[in-house]
């Protein structure tokens, strides 16, 4: 089949693709629902912009039709096939955003073997024909081979061996016309050029033998050996590279493993989140994040997680730009994010973009779904613990949409029916809600309003009760300039508060509260001013207002003396710029700077202390009083971001990165796992902000049909880590600097990951080797922890292995499973026993010298989709899952206790048995809708 009639419709767009642009593969991106029912012309225009799609139409025109986009997970090819197949058109795409629409005859995917302007022997051609095969879903019409050396020019014309000018014209095979933006790469010199908009190229080279590699988006690579003697001409014809129509795989947008400069980066979509089995059928982004390399936790049910050997307070959580300070429900058993509303989450743990700051270890960025602009839809589910429902739809069609999700437990009701009094008298309620409005004001302006609420009310058998509340809201406006640049402005508000009531002893019954208010303004600008540069710049300002709360008597019978911990205020502002510069097709460099200016503000009274001595009540030299909004202390800090990507070949790269970050807020905690009543505290007059550096180096490889592999090594160091002194009492520690010391954290590790993101059988497997340790030894004041010796961090797991798999047995039956292994966390065991008044007492000495037993778990889930009848009101899914299939009693902790004169040792496990659950999820409409 000749390509004579393939005409290029959107010719001008091609000029944007002069460089080899392999990002934004339109054939793999989903068509937004907003394009439903638009005309072909609109569709063409929209997808050309948003998806970089190009269309090649055989006949030049198409019949009038409207495009139907029935779900948000359809590719351009799916959408066009649906509309055009019935009228006899065929759609074929390559992997690079080109769509070929042919009429009548099914497109032959075999194209004539291209031939060179020069002679090749008949036997060579037939040999290459034998090599024809289908590879990676692509038809390879001529395998890469090297022809005989072509002699260009005449040695007599260039006796001085000056540089020669080689010119040429590159076309597609047949009559496809010039190839624009094709590359000509000189193997020996590792350099090259590209063809211009007419298909011409020029190279200035010294005479000699070279191997030229001709390549373009839509054609097959071709290698040519030349012997250049003087100025000359070499025209080239390249074969089209078309897809064989086998099966269409729907793929979500994804960051490219090999090509992006991102390191230590994981992005997971709602689809993946839904497929992984979790405890009690409660889909949970944080539990899923724990299956990624470098992410661990102190133990099951512990809140927060540890990224690459850092404490949990070095992670920041954002939902639609809104920070969430308490990410868990029920003390950490569940995460506070409704899974139905989540579109995807991104975890940055290696190179954190310059637009994020304020946390040393990671940024956990959750994107919620955008409500459908076309029709009402709802989904929800019931698990043994919660019920949830989510609704979305247009307010003004194609202009304004909403999405609302709510989740709540019914455990209160269940608990009341339990006979055991400890449980019957307990209460555990939690719930969360999300509300979003999206407005497409016009082509270049979008507005998103987002609100978040979560609440926990827990009462433990009549003596302790907790109430946690998180509220957040953001207004996000984005503005696009000439389809190239965009401006994002967001105003963010977040409020975290808790209250604890303790009435274990009537006369000592107390109540304590805490509140943190976070207001933030971000202005973020993405620019593409020059070719090969992507610049991100902006400013951000955060106003923190903390009420460290009261510790006061609960009632009249209580004789507790009230303590007011006081309020704190600070402004953290930052200005940043980063540039991702594609120096050559093979090297991309990213550099960024972020200047943070942190000001601790009054009203406040602060103490000054004698220099070089411990900060304690006895060393106070002066008290400084500051009025409202008066700067007390200012810390400036420059963050660096640097990363580089060397593309070794299209499927292999090496990346390196260095990051420096500053953190001005930390969690005051003296427990091994974060406790529910731990409070955030700001860096202040006497407590310095934390500074962290991370170096990472990685090797990335895409192989096989769909596999992505990576190896990343990192080394990081954090300074001014805040640790409680031995025996400090949190409840009464009003003047924090008396009770804490600042030290250093060191962590290093290597992470191996192989991922198969798509296909009937998908999943990932990873292994990490990691170390993390803390040193607190202030030689000037003589204060230290652990006798001034380095000790392993509480959450150090040297070996971790995670296997996550999904197998689609059929469209209605999906099996999935996890296998998790990790070495036990460090623990302190007694060094001896001694006697006091006849009682045995345990003597502890050095920290974390031992480890608890290794952790091992297998989870399985079976997902049963409802019937696939095309027209029905709702579609249901049953998920049967078992968590901890082997029932292994994994240790959360091992401890010694002196009880009635005897020392006993125990192992505590949180989920010491198999946990079966059934979850029912439903949605309006059908399977794929």
């Amino acid at each position: 089949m000749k390509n004579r009639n393939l005409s290029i419709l959107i010719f001008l767009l091609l000029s944007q693709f002069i460089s080899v642009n392999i990002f934004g593969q339109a054939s793999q991106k989903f068509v937004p629902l907003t394009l439903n029912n638009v005309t072909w012309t609109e569709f063409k225009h929209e997808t050309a912009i948003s998806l970089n799609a190009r269309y090649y139409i055989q006949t030049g025109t198409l019949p009038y039709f409207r495009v139907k986009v029935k779900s948000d997970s359809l590719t351009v090819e799916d959408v066009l096939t649906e509309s055009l197949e019935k009228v006899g058109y065929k759609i074929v795409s390559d992997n690079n955003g080109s769509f070929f629409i042919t009429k009548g005859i099914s497109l032959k995917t075999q194209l004539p073997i291209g031939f060179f302007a020069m002679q090749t022997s008949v036997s060579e051609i037939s040999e290459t024909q034998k090599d024809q095969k289908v590879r990676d879903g692509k038809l390879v019409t001529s395998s890469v081979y090297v022809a005989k050396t072509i002699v260009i020019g005449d040695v007599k014309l260039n006796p001085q061996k000056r540089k020669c000018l080689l010119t040429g014209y590159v076309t597609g095979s047949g009559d496809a016309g010039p190839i624009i933006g094709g590359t000509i790469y000189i193997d020996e010199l590792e350099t090259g050029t590209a063809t211009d908009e007419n298909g011409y190229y020029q190279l200035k080279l010294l005479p000699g033998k070279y191997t030229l590699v001709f390549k373009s988006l839509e054609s097959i690579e071709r290698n040519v050996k030349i012997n250049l003697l003087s100025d000359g001409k070499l025209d080239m014809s390249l074969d089209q590279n078309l897809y064989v129509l086998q099966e269409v795989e729907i793929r979500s947008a994804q960051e490219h493993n090999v090509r992006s400069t991102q390191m230590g980066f994981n992005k997971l979509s709602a689809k993946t989140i839904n497929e992984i089995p979790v405890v009690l059928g409660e889909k949970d982004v944080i539990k899923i994040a724990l299956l990624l390399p470098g992410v661990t936790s102190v133990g099951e049910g512990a809140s927060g997680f540890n990224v690459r050997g850092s404490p949990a307070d070095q992670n920041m959580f954002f939902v639609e730009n809104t920070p969430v300070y308490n990410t868990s429900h029920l003390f950490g058993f569940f995460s506070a994010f409704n899974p139905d509303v989540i579109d995807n989450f991104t975890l940055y743990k290696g190179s954190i973009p310059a637009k994020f700051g304020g946390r040393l270890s990671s940024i956990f960025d959750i994107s919620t779904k955008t409500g459908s602009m076309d029709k009402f839809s709802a989904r929800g589910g019931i698990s043994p613990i919660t019920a949830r429902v989510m609704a979305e739809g247009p307010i003004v069609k194609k202009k304004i949409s909403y999405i609302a999700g709510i989740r709540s437990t019914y455990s209160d009701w269940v608990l009341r029916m339990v006979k055991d009094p400890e449980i019957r008298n307990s209460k555990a309620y939690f719930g969360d809600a999300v509300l979003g409005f999206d407005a497409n004001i016009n082509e270049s302006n979008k507005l998103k309003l987002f609100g978040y609420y979560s609440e926990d009310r827990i009462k433990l058998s009549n003596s302790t009760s907790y109430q946690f509340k998180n509220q957040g809201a953001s207004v996000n406006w984005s503005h696009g300039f000439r389809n190239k640049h965009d401006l994002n402005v967001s105003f963010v508000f977040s409020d975290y508060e808790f209250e604890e009531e303790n009435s274990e002893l009537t006369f000592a019954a107390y109540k304590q509260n805490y509140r943190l208010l976070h207001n933030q303004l971000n202005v973020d600008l993405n620019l593409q001013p020059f070719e090969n540069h992507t610049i991100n710049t902006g400013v951000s300002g955060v106003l923190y207002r903390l009420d460290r709360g009261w510790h006061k008597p609960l009632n009249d019978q209580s004789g507790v003396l009230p303590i007011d911990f006081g309020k704190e205020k600070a402004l953290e502002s930052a200005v940043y710029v980063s540039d991702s510069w594609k120096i050559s097709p093979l090297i991309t460099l990213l550099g960024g700077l972020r200047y943070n200016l942190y000001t601790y503000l009054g009203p406040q009274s602060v103490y000054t202390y004698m220099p070089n001595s411990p900060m304690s009540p006895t060393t106070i030299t002066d008290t400084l009083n500051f009025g409202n909004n008066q700067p007390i202390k200012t810390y400036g800090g420059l963050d660096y971001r640097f990363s580089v990507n060397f593309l070794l070949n299209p499927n292999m790269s090496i990346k390196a990165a260095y990051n420096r970050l500053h953190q001005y807020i930390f969690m005051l905690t003296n427990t091994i796992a974060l406790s529910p009543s731990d409070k955030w505290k700001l860096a202040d007059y006497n407590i310095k902000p934390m500074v962290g550096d991370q170096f990472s180096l990685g090797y990335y490889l895409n192989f096989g049909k769909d596999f992505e592999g990576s190896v990343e090594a990192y080394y990081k160091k954090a300074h001014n880590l805040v640790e409680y002194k031995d025996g400090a009492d949190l409840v009464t520690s009003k003047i924090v600097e008396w009770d804490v010391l600042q030290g250093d954290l060191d962590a290093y590790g290597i992470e191996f990951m192989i991922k198969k993101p798509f296909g009937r059988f998908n999943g990932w497997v990873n292994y990490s080797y990691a170390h993390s340790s803390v040193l607190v030894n202030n030689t000037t004041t003589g204060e230290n922890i652990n006798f001034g010796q380095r000790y392993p961090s509480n959450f150090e797991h040297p070996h971790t292995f995670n296997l996550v798999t999904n197998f689609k047995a059929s469209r209605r039956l999906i099996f999935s499973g996890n296998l998790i292994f990790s070495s036990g966390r460090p623990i302190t065991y007694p060094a001896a026993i001694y006697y006091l008044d006849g009682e045995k007492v345990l003597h502890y000495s050095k920290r974390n010298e031992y480890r608890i037993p290794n952790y091992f778990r297998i989870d399985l889930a079976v997902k049963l989709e409802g019937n696939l009848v095309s027209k029905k009101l709702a579609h249901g899914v049953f998920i049967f899952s078992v968590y901890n299939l082997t029932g292994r009693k994994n240790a959360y902790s091992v401890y010694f206790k002196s009880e009635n004169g005897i020392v006993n040792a125990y192992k505590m496990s949180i989920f010491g048995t198999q946990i079966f659950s059934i979850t029912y999820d439903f949605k309006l409409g059908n399977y794929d809708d």
Partner: protein
Amino acid sequence: MKTQNVIYILVIILISNSCVDKFWPDVDKYENVLVVDGLLSDSNDPTTVRLSYSSSINSGDFIPAVGGELYLSSSIQDDVFFDETEPGIYMITDTSFKGIPEAFYQLHIKMPSGNIYESEMCSMPLSSPIDTIYNVYESKQVYVGGMEEHGLQFYLNNHSDSYDTCYYLWKLSSTFKYQASFRIHYTFEGEFIPYPNPDSLRTCWFSSKENDIFIFSTQYFDEPIVKDLPLNFVSTSNKSLSIRYSLNVNQLSISKDAYDFFNALKQQNIDQGNMYSKQPIQIKGNVVSINNKEEPVLGYFVVAGSTEKRIYVDRPKIPFTYVECTPDYDLRFIRFEPPSAWPIYIVDIMFTGWAMGPTNNCFDCRLDGGSLTPPDYWIE
């Protein structure tokens, strides 16, 4: 209904069934450290210091530190020397010596190795009166997941006229009178022999120290008053309350440092096994090594003002759950028992009743740890 059960189970698993199993890990490191455990008070009890060495967690033996030379210096009295009355037990044998409130004391130790240890200078706080000790019938789970037990919870009220802030350590000891389940009427050794004194092994008095550390400070309270402070809980699942029970409370007024020491020990022991437990630490006492400042010394030399109060409680009218013995033999078949089973004790009225096997706590109360004679302080 069935689904509801499933849900209960899941929730119970989730919330309560974080299971705890006995598990003894390999602990191969061991620190051998000197332990000083002493108490000086203004009571008439002899001042005693126990010196020992810490032992391996796997053995847990008491290793006395013998041959020490100890003396006490003070701000108002002459130096007083200790005698080693038993291995590792050092006492001021001069019965006329007792501490004087508000004086300063310091303990000096010289070990045979030549190492010298000293306590900090400690002032002896004034004692405070115990106002009342009372009890309330309560039922509670003595351990998590256990059955509910009935019993008496003891409480204490006190006040201080001397200080604005008080620190207390209470040492509790219980004594109770109880009876074995049966009287012995006869013994059987081929023939029935009348038992001379059927009640002789039946009634006993049992004394024990309470293991828990009872401490409290009024530092976070408006007034130096302790109100309704829970002491021990005495369950009816044993015979403690079956006839008459006595609780003796020795209230020691201690320094803030001593309080902090005992509080740290107590909290550290309670805290282990909590989901949010703290990193256990070395708890430093008030004795240091003079030769080597780095050498850890465990324990505490407590200097305290002392008050005591004893109360008695007769069998309360509350549910008792302890179980009396059931006899081993039916009397009708006793003649078929071989001589190896002899002597058989006939513990109930002849011809209608039952018999017990050899030596047994069902008729010999001493085998439950008690003594047949009441302690000196016992008042009926």
